[in-house]
């Protein structure tokens, strides 16, 4: 673990002299830039890693491991947006396995004049390193101080300790972490990324209206944070997170009957219904393109390129859908909706009456949502139309949103265990729905391409095979539903939910 020092009164030159007096070789100042890269939701950071593009004397793309493993350093000079931009190898594999469908974004840029320093032993081997960063600029803002980072070399802990002791003796103030951590703390930059978690801290005795508004405000912030990324189409998760936040908002509004003012509740439900609807086509096509390889791989096509034309068309449609969506999200209607929603959330007049406690209100809502899910699920037979499964999927989402948005009211472990059971059912319903939608889209696409005479016979035949595959998948998910629902609709599971609602939240 590196240690970073500073001092409000000493000059950088005095510290350089002190390092020299302590036996360090100190280089002349050289420009340095470090750009911290991570996904929007900080997936690398969550895995204990930090990706930095370094320019200057120390130029490389560096993957730092907070768990004590050596840093990986790739000779590279451009910020990758996707791991695929990097050469193949373990570096790329490690990054890709964590970032998955999310793009890499620049979170923080630190420039400085750096003086590299090192102590060497009699073999000429470096035993401890230091870096003195002066004229530090963070995202355009000049820091009023210099920073010196001391980093040990494995097997030479004593040398590191001695160096730290000397700097402390000079009156320098140490802090755990390297220069980037120190800079982020001083400037208030969050390196952990933005979470879209819907759970907010609540107490069962909180006023119901206050609690609903807190949950809705958190969802509004998620919508706001994901709006620009969706418009810019940076990666598919921005739209997904925005869409989920919109659906959760709508669902929470629906559950706010008797708590939230009816007029506002109805109006915003309708408006967010519209917003949810306009985001649908782009998301459906995202899922199609994302799942494409999984769909095509099992077909073992004679000519693997025969469906390329279809994928290109799907991608074109996807881009068009995203462009259309971006126009909507930039529109006055959307801006007005989000502004009026934010105003309502902070309007003090709205909180005039808040005499219900959130705990019992949510317990009642969850009981009702579970009852509807069980009743509707039990009513589904092999002869039921697919719409019944789609409706059941909505029931499941409604229950899930309640359990997640108001999750802090319940025991975390028990809640997550129950949500896991619910998720297994949702996965089945989701796969069924995706297969339905994608089959319909494929048919539409086949007609369109054929009508435009832009597809050859081989591709049409391959589309037929893909259609069969999607249909088999749909039928299989439909067949699996009985078992999945039976797994969910058990006495143990029902008891688990009852226990969850009866238990207090974690202390």
């Amino acid at each position, binding site marked *: 673990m590196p240690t970073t020092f500073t001092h409000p009164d000493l000059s950088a030159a005095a510290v350089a002299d002190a390092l020299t007096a302590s036996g360090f070789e100190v280089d002349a100042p050289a420009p340095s830039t470090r750009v911290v890269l991570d996904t929007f939701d900080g997936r690398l950071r969550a895995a204990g890693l930090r990706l930095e593009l370094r320019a200057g004397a120390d130029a490389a793309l560096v993957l730092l491991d907070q768990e004590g493993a050596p840093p990986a350093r*790739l000779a*590279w000079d451009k910020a990758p947006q996707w791991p*695929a931009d990097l050469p193949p190898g*373990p570096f790329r594999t490690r990054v890709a396995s964590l970032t998955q469908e999310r793009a890499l974004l620049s979170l923080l840029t630190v420039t400085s004049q750096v003086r590299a320093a090192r102590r060497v032993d009699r073999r*000429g081997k470096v035993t401890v390193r230091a870096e003195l960063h002066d004229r530090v600029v963070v995202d355009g803002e000049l820091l009023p101080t210099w920073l010196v980072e001391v980093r*040990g070399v494995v097997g030479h802990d004593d040398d590191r300790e001695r160096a730290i002791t000397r700097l402390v003796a000079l009156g320098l103030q140490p802090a755990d972490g390297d220069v980037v951590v120190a800079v982020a703390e001083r400037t208030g930059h969050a390196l952990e990324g933005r979470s879209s978690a819907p759970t907010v801290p609540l107490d069962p005795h909180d006023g119901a209206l206050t609690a609903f508004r807190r949950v809705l405000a958190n969802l509004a912030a998620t919508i706001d944070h994901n709006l620009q990324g969706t418009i810019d189409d940076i990666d598919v998760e921005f739209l997904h997170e925005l869409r989920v936040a919109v659906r959760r908002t709508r669902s929470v509004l629906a559950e706010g009957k008797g708590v939230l003012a009816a007029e506002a509740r109805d109006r915003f439900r309708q408006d967010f219904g519209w917003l949810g609807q306009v985001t649908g086509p782009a998301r459906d096509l995202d899922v199609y393109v994302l799942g494409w390889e999984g769909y095509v791989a099992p077909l073992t096509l004679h000519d693997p390129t025969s469906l390329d034309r279809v994928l290109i068309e799907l991608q074109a449609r996807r881009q068009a859908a995203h462009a259309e969506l971006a126009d909507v999200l930039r529109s006055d209607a959307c801006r007005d909706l989000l502004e009026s929603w934010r105003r309502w959330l902070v309007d003090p007049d709205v909180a005039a009456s808040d005499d219900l406690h959130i705990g019992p209100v949510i317990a009642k809502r969850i009981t009702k949502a579970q009852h509807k899910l069980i009743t509707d699920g039990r009513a589904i037979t092999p002869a039921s139309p697919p719409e019944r499964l789609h409706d059941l999927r909505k029931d499941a989402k409604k229950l899930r949103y309640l359990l997640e948005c108001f999750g802090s009211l319940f025991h975390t472990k028990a809640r997550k265990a129950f949500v896991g059971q619910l998720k297994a059912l949702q996965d089945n319903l989701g796969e069924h729905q995706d297969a339905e939608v994608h089959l319909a889209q494929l048919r539409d696409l086949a007609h369109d391409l054929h009508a435009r005479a832009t597809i050859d016979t081989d591709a049409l035949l391959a589309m037929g095979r893909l259609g069969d595959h999607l249909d088999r998948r749909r039928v299989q998910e439909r067949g699996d539903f009985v078992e999945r629902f039976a797994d969910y609709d058990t006495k143990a599971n029902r008891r688990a939910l009852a226990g969850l609602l009866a238990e207090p939240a974690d202390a």
Partner: protein
Amino acid sequence: MKVAATYSIKGGVGKTSAAVNLAFEAARAGVRVLVWDLDPQGAATYLFRVRAKVRGGSRRLVSADGALAAHIRGSDLSAVHVVPADFSLRHLDLHLEGAKRPTERLARLLEPLTDHYDLALLDCPPSISLASESVFGAADALLVPVVPATLASRTLTQLVDFLDDQVEAPAVVPLLSMVDRRRKLHRELVEELRAEWPELLGTAVPAAAVIERMGLERAPVGVYAPSSPATRVYRALWAEVADRLWPPDPPRRIVA
């Protein structure tokens, strides 16, 4: 973590030069490398400027699971760590004999380090012994330097024949080493070796003064002669080795 070993039954064929320079090039390509010097002469240890000292000697080194981490030393390259060698490793065979399942011993010692490194590069002494068998048990690939000499092919055949009898043998990756293109005999032998061993890597390491200077510089060639032809050779060699260790499989770019 992949495990590769620079190995040859013969001595003086460029094993350590290959290990040290491949470690440098691997690190440059974003790979976290652990070089384990298994040769009691400790040449790799010396070239990385690490103190040639194995605390407790080779007996302690192979004594208990997880003990290897305590022997690791940083090098001047931040992405390359070293398990140094000292003269006690001359008894490695003896201490392995006393261990349970000696041919699995090195693999078991490396196991706890799997998440810390992408590549363990074992620089082996020239022999075929119990320690060699333990190396074979741990390695995914044996990088076998072959010098253009009349008996080189025979030595390689001996190794391949030996490994043919093993249940889980590492891949044998032979590479031409210490090639002097000015010598007619070398050119002819290289041609013969390539004809006989099509699996030889395309890159041939030359006999070059800049490589011999490693002993003076105590560093990989890429550190003190980054633009030299020898550095380019090791870079190309690493690219071939990396392809063997991690066959390219480009990840999908999600959005067009």
